[in-house]
């Protein structure tokens, strides 16, 4: 914790990143309060320009764009949280087991990692989405499956490195079971590296989900920034007049901001938490 706080002091990017993400979390949590309307309710005429009633005007159906923008925060953050959790669970599990057990299990698991790394992520994602139909759950699952290999490798590499530093073997020598070793020694040591990696995963997850929605493979009914971009760009009127200023731009900016937030945190944490980083300098 102390090292974290000192990182904060030394890295303005980290502070900014945390601030951005915290603001987004607050917006997402308080969406029902912040958004003036239900995001799918028809509350005005189509294509109303921004006014006091509709801060960013209305979309083609007559729904309030600002409310949709606010509620879209939940979608992006939900993707970030759930996809990252999935990556964490699978990546840490596979990496730990491979690093601790070694031998044939390690080899097999790393081949599994290679297979997943070799799979063409985006085309596969598109294929599955087209097959199963658009769904946020499926998107999260596919993103998780695409991103866990990198985390697994990092965890394995760290685990191996920690193993070579005596304390694992000495703990085992004293009779400690593997779970004790994991809980007491490995996880705390892995924490910083994995955290640093996972923050980038979160940013990637948000981008990929929005990207899927953007190309039309998301659920068109769902409220999300990617869907907003897709729907706005599909509309023949988007560049007639200033419609794009309030329908297209804010959603794009929101996405950019979210990804920047996660990236800044990751970059800010890296010098402290990623041993490879400092060694490469």
């Amino acid at each position, binding site marked *: 914790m102390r090292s974290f706080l000192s990182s904060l002091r030394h890295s303005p990017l980290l502070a900014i990143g945390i601030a951005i993400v915290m603001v987004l979390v607050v917006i997402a949590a308080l969406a029902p309060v912040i958004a003036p309307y239900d995001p799918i309710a028809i509350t005005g005429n189509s294509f109303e320009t921004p006014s006091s009633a509709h801060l960013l005007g209305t979309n*083609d*159906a007559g729904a309030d764009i600002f409310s949709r923008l606010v509620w879209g925060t939940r979608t992006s953050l939900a993707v970030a949280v759930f996809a990252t959790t999935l990556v964490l669970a699978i990546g840490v599990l596979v990496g730990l087991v491979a690093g601790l057990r070694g031998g044939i299990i390690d080899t097999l698991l790393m081949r599994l990692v290679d297979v997943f790394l070799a799979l063409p992520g985006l085309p596969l994602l598109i294929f599955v989405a087209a097959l199963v139909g*658009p769904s946020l759950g499926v998107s999260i699952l596919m993103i998780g499956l695409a991103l866990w290999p990198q985390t697994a490798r990092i965890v394995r590499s760290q685990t191996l490195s920690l193993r070579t530093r005596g304390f694992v073997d000495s703990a085992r020598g004293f009779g400690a079971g593997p779970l004790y070793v994991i809980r007491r020694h490995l996880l705390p040591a892995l924490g910083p590296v994995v955290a640093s990696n996972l923050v980038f995963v979160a940013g990637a997850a948000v981008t990929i989900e929005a990207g899927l929605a953007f190309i039309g493979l998301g659920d*068109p*009914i769902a409220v999300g920034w990617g869907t907003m971009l897709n729907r706005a760009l*599909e509309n*023949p*009127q988007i*560049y007639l007049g200033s419609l794009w200023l309030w329908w297209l731009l804010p959603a794009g900016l929101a996405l950019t901001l979210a990804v920047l937030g996660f990236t800044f945190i990751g970059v800010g944490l890296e010098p402290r938490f990623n041993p490879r980083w400092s060694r490469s300098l």
Partner: protein
Amino acid sequence: MKRRTFLQGLAGASGAVLLGGCSSGGGAGAGGRPTVRVLSWTSLGYPSPFAYTAGPGYWRMSLLFDTLVWKDATGQFLPWLASAFVLADDGLSYDVELRPDLRWADGRPVTARDVAFTFEYYATQTFTPFLIGVPRNVAGVEETGERRLRLRMEEPDATFLQSVLGTVPIVPEHIWSQISNPMAEMSPQALIGTGPYRLNSRDESGDAESYVARDDYFLGAPYVRRIEMVPADNPLTALAVGELDAAGASEAGERDEVLEPFRSNDQFGVVSSDAGFGFPLFFNLRRGGALADLRFRRACIHALNRTDMVTRLLTGNGQVGSAGFLPPTHEFYNPDVAQYPYDPAEAERLLDEGGYRRSGPGGARTNPDGTPLRLTLNLPDVIPTALAELTAANLRDVGIGIDLEVIDVIRLFGLKLNDNFDLAITTFPGPSGIGPNGDPEILRGVYHSLPAGQDPTPVTGNQLHKAAGYANAEVDRLLAEQRAAYDIEERKRLVGEIQQIVAEEVPTIMLYTTTLFFAYRKRAFDQWYYTPGGFGPGLPDVYNKHPYITGRQTGLAIRDVQDS
């Protein structure tokens, strides 16, 4: 789904339109026969009489092949390959006389034998439903003299003139008698017809093509010298910047703002056709429960603010659908059928009466048996999302639980085919391309109790548009009778009765129909029109070959190029 990424193009569009967009390459100039550039669609198939795909494929093919009769802007059938055609007194056959001196593109003469062969040949094969020019109800074709034929029907059929004489392309016997697999034949000889144009070039993907006039065409050298099919992601933008000479707006309807640049600019003309396309909502009666309950269906329709849909989504460029299915612009429209105007209070009253009670004020409704009233509404992703949201919102407002699912067209087709849905909104037309203003036979495709595959109608029926689980013997009987009614007043009466019954029972409701718009650069070509009742099998587009050939909207006389 299409991506519209032409920032440049649209900036250019406003610039071009403002400056009075010069077109490069298209246009007649004084005294020249024009070249016209129109939109190419993808996957149209090969333009032979047996390998094209659906409506757009059909009209391309019609540039190369002719039918016995053909329509102009009056909607009347003109003698085309046939110089005369007479319905027999018993209504079971047409006597046809061919024009003299007709020749195939390879120079061989066209004979009555070719016509007879054409129908024999069609009878030997089964074709995909995308081939909309396939004849039905033909009992046989006999030569009755030199250049004389009798086309016999199996049953009396008031649609026969359009669906057979006006639709079926006549093919040369000396070529097709050698070909056993017509749908796979992609050779140049498959394109030898009597038509006004010949295929000049075609890129590998079949997207970009050009057609050049045959100056030895039997009506005379066609007025439009060359037709080019140009691919474009956004046709109206392409028209504005000069890549196309004419383009249609979206069939799903278009707002005034999008049409304004063409309406306000003298360079362009715009033609329109009401009710060219529609969005029907289907209730799956086979599911039973609320969906099979007439009162529930009527309540649903009362809950839908369809006028608002047209205003909000299309700035009024559409028409609220009639419960009798045929739109008010239709020649056979019955104005006296039951309608269900927007009335949420009435919807609530009907639902309460039907036992679908709310759990509390503003609460969700339950079925009479206590289970939650929750239905899935399926739509294809080609339908505007806003329509889905409006429909769901209207129904939820009266307490009906709706789960909205937007899926791709193929999957929706599968669901609809297997009656595996609760509520579904589709587009109308589908692959047949014959819209709400087409021959009243379209009612057969929607309301006849037989599945589309078992009940081929001269106007291609499609399971996508069947009212699921609907079976009314009286409607079936009336559908059969109206098809055989040659007297137009009698036919109107019968079709009126059908509309009356289906408006009472509403297994489906046309949410609204859209106005089709077509914009064109006047300098290039200005004789575009929407054919009353559609051309060929009843296609509702502007791409009737007649004005290209004659340079006019009516008649067979070809306009002198010096007039332009």
